């Protein structure tokens, strides 16, 4: 089956099962509906698969923050593939492009690891980490709301004891999502707060504990050690925990996101990514390289500041989004 066919089927299925929620669909609809049309435009403009064609493709992907090397490799592979299959007509190249791009994202990985690892009949602990200002606390609020609506008993732990107002911010989100927040005073030891959170979650028979942490730049060794310590507390107190370590990445971030993913993974063994601020104009293409090199899947995307603005990640729709601009200018 060609990639385009697979994709079509996938969307049909999605629509039937309402798997893709309306919000995400809305955001991606324009792109999706006109995607093949746009590809056709491009193809019409470039009758030949020549240098210009590849140059524009390269620029489109680079402007989406797909890693430079990733793009160069892709273009090289495409050039080879085009030669190998003796493709002269741009019409035939579109499948190859899309296929390669999705291939980069998935690599040899299993396609179905995007779901959150939540245990039944047992406390699941989610640790949320990332650099300053990416949207950790906001995403926690949104996630708590979502889990709560699925009938889970959720508790939040205010592990950011450093930034001014961080505890109060999480408390507001706790109110919005209607879940409990465990806290200590500002400046206390984050590991102690998380320890308290676990104790409270256990005694209240909670299903999920989500731990907020202070933002930190990944090159601050002491702060990264502090984070490892928090994780060790969780490991010690709950067997099998943390069940998820979510790294929050701001889609506006460029190539440094790869460094973030690497270093945070070393410190806390990140299991998934929340890609925030996709409601802006940035594309967050760097997650392609992150998945490819570090095998960390994106699990959620943030699409706004409201409690509802968190959606499960859809790789195919995302890859589409990377291309959206390619023909928008025309």
């Amino acid at each position, binding site marked *: 089956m060609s990639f385009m066919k697979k994709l079509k089927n996938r969307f049909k299925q999605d629509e039937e099962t309402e798997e893709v929620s309306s919000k995400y669909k809305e955001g991606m609809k324009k792109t999706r509906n006109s995607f093949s049309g746009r590809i056709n435009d491009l193809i019409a403009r470039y009758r030949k698969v020549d240098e210009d064609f590849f140059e524009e493709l390269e620029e489109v992907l680079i402007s989406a923050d797909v890693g430079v*090397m990733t793009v160069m490799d892709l273009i090289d592979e495409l050039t080879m593939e085009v030669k190998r299959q003796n493709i002269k007509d741009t019409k035939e190249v579109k499948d190859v492009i899309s296929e390669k791009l999705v291939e980069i994202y998935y690599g040899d990985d299993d396609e179905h690891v995007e779901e959150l690892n939540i245990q039944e009949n047992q406390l699941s602990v989610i640790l949320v980490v990332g650099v*300053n200002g*990416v949207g950790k606390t906001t995403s926690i609020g949104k996630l708590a709301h979502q889990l709560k609506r699925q009938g889970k008993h959720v508790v939040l732990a205010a592990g950011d004891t450093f930034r001014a107002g961080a505890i*109060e911010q999480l408390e507001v989100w706790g109110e919005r999502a209607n879940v409990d927040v465990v806290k200590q005073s500002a400046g206390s030891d984050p590991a102690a707060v998380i320890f308290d959170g676990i104790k409270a979650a256990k005694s209240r028979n909670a299903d999920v504990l989500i731990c907020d942490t202070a933002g930190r730049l990944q090159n601050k060794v002491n702060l990264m050690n502090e984070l490892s310590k928090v994780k060790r507390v969780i490991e010690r107190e709950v067997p099998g925990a943390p069940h998820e370590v979510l790294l929050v990445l701001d889609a506006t971030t*460029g190539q*440094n996101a790869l460094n973030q993913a690497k270093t945070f993974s070393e410190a806390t063994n990140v299991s998934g990514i929340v890609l925030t601020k996709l409601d*802006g*104009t940035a594309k967050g293409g760097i997650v392609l390289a992150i998945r490819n090199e570090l095998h960390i899947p994106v699990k959620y995307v943030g699409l706004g500041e409201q409690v509802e603005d968190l959606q499960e990640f859809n790789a195919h729709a995302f890859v589409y989004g990377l291309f959206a601009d390619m023909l928008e200018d025309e």
Partner: protein
Amino acid sequence: MAFEGLADRLQSTIKKITGKGKVSEQDVKEMTREVRLALLEADVNFKVVKGLINRIKERAVGQEVMESLTPGQQVIKVVKEELTTLMGGEHSKIAVSDRPPTVIMMVGLQGAGKTTTTGKLANHLRKKHNRSPLLVACDIYRPAAIKQLETLGEQLDMPVFSMGTETSPVDIAGKAIEQAKEQHNDYVIIDTAGRLHVDNELMDELQQIKSVARPDEIFLVVDSMTGQDAVNVAESFNDQLDISGVVLTKLDGDTRGGAALSIKAVTDKPIKFAGMGEKLDELEAFHPERMASRILGMGDVLSLIEKAQTNVDEKQAKQLEEKMRTMSFTFDDFLEQMGQVKNMGPLDDLMAMIPGANKMKGLKNAQLDEKQLVHVEAIIQSMTKKERQEPGIMNASRKKRIAKGSGTSVSQVNRLLKQFEEMKKMMKQMTNIQKGKKGKGMNFPFM
């Protein structure tokens, strides 16, 4: 593999050229290709890169590079010059209004660091300019944003003006300025909510605040890790608000920070300050030159020097600086300096201090450089005392003797001599840049 510095990137091309003696247009093409990749990897916007590459190419095919004995370094020099020109000079002045209070408005995307920077600026104004600012909480949207500013105000022992989350930010700004007049605050810093540049409603709100508050400065706060989208963000904010300057935050991270270049290119507004940490005194004047090196992955050499200082003998360093400034620096000093570099520990530790140089890569480089270091040392040791003091007397037969004595080639000797001269010039420049700072000059005479 990612995040190679420009010097690393150019190394293989340079190697090919060395020994061949002459640089071909093809070589130049390869070098500019590497330059392009280095800039893109540093998050410089691809359109900005295009313009830069065109200018670099023009200069590179000229005599400047092609007829140089050290074409690699010449390319780097040209690139650095172009970048530095584009970055512009230093501008860390803040406006002063004839009719106080002077009003500063902080704008930017969500999570850029506006509130923290508001606190830092206030601290800066008091400490460096003896001012008494009033902080204004106009972020009524993000939960606990007001609380955040109030906490900063407490930490700084400075007044914070807030009216809760029910009053419109436009009214809050207006009332705050009235209060500042009454209570004789000579500066008012308005912290606004983060917003997307494409959010028409909220961008409109900023324009309204602007028309009420009539700010003397509008600072766009941008996260230094921003990628290709930086141009869209900066252009939008600038078009709609006519910003007066930029504050680049989180530069204490390990990002290359190419966004700085993109922002400057599209707005032509100065980047005035750099956020260098989470504490309220970690705001610095922005150094365009340092930024240019950093973007090229050549490290923030000056900061590195400042860090290395602790390991350098104070008296020696002073002498060295004097020599550097007067250009009386000799090969003996060079040797001594190399010894000091070695004393600072393994080169890869130093490399690790360089933003963006990831450890593994640094290790590989360090071995390479250390090998070159041995050659350099051997060459200098084969010089007579007089030659070391006055490299000017060097002639063909002397060079031949030195090459033989050190087990190197005449072209290697030539290269070192040339590098040495260039380095002396650079040192002079560096000591000039550092004037007024306590930093001791120190450079790494190898590449």
